[in-house]
């Protein structure tokens, strides 16, 4: 079968994709909509992704949360395996190449494929360019950017939409890439957010009737809020978030923040990148004030607190 080709643009990079599966292209399209910087910066680099979809398994035995990875010193490659080997990915650092073999049955795991074929390999490869991934939302107000970091289900999208409604500007609701350039900057991830029906109902007044997508609502934020989507912002503060019954915000020691953020960044891979990533995270937490934020649905109170926190911490080193 003739191989299909498609290019994707992410940050300042191009990914050349080749695959034998039209379904896979459709899945990558769903997971891959990034804002383009205006004006478009020059392409800094490129990576290739080759995916073969095969039909050897009739069912997947692995658990959805189970994955394995290891660094191969001889090949200078990171090997990832997910769903009991139904998704296997090799990330070659010297060749900037991602090679994947996906069992047809694994095509049902559409969001996971986006993660394992694009997000994780890309986050690994851009470390060469000193971009560091973090599982975090990013909102901006008065030229000060607030990061809201937390694992899936902790309320990143909910808070991003709540603050957007309160007049903040949107950089990302889920994925950011951090880099250092006279301060720390966050660049946004996808501008298309998938929100649960519950979250959509909370913000129906500003979201209107977005497209339905596999039990969720798919929102093209740039189209919905054309003047409120930013490509990047200078970081003033980070909050590690959790929904709770009562509102509480407390300052974290740098060492506590690094520990908490370990699990939200990809660290253990190529040893040199692991060292650099650790160093970056340590510098970040030493320079940027970090808080633990337990939030409620009183978004007006939240807005007041967060506005004050970024004002106080604006650009200041601790």
């Amino acid at each position, binding site marked *: 079968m003739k191989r299909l080709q498609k290019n994707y643009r992410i940050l300042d990079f191009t990914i050349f994709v080749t695959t034998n599966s039209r379904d896979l292209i459709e899945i990558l399209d769903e997971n891959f909509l990034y804002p383009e910087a205006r004006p478009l910066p020059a392409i800094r680099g490129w990576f290739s992704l080759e995916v073969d979809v095969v039909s050897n398994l009739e069912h997947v035995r692995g658990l959805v949360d189970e994955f394995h990875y290891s660094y191969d010193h001889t090949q200078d490659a990171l090997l990832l395996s997910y769903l009991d080997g139904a998704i296997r990915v090799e990330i070659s650092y010297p060749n900037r190449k991602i090679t994947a073999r996906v069992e047809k049955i694994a095509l049902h795991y559409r969001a996971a494929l986006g993660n394992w074929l694009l997000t994780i390999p890309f986050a690994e490869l851009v470390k060469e360019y000193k971009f560091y991934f973090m599982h975090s939302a990013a909102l901006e107000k008065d030229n000060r950017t607030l990061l809201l970091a937390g694992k899936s289900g902790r309320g990143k999208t909910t808070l991003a939409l709540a603050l957007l409604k309160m007049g903040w500007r949107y950089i990302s609701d889920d994925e950011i890439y951090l880099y250092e350039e006279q301060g720390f900057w966050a660049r946004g991830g996808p501008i298309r957010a998938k929100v649960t029906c519950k979250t959509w109902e909370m913000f129906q007044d500003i979201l209107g009737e977005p497209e339905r997508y596999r039990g969720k609502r798919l929102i093209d934020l740039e189209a919905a809020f054309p003047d409120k989507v930013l490509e990047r912002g200078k970081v003033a503060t980070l909050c590690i978030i959790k929904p709770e019954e009562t509102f509480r915000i407390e300052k974290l020691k740098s060492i506590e923040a690094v520990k908490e953020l370990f699990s939200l960044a990809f660290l253990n891979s190529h040893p040199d990148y*692991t060292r650099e990533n650790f160093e970056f995270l340590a510098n970040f937490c030493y320079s940027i004030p970090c808080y633990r934020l337990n939030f409620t649905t009183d978004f007006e109170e939240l807005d007041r607190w967060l506005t004050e926190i970024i004002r106080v911490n604006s650009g200041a080193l601790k």
Partner: protein
Amino acid sequence: MIYKRTEQVEWRKFENESLLLNVATGTYFRINEVGSLIWENLDGKKPAEELINLVVKHFDVTEAVARQDYQKFIDQLVADNLISVVE
């Protein structure tokens, strides 16, 4: 015995505490100020007696307690492959 930090550990001191990362395994360790003082001085040159004396000098503990804490800490670091024996 004299120990030194292995090459597979990356570390950073934050105020009085330190965070150690084993880059080979991805595991990390938070150590308190007593541990940080010992860790910083595991340079492959200082013998155990010198490090125990450092702990006694900086913290309000007896030599017996310092020795016990030192040995326990060193055993943990060896087990996690964060230090190795020089001599």
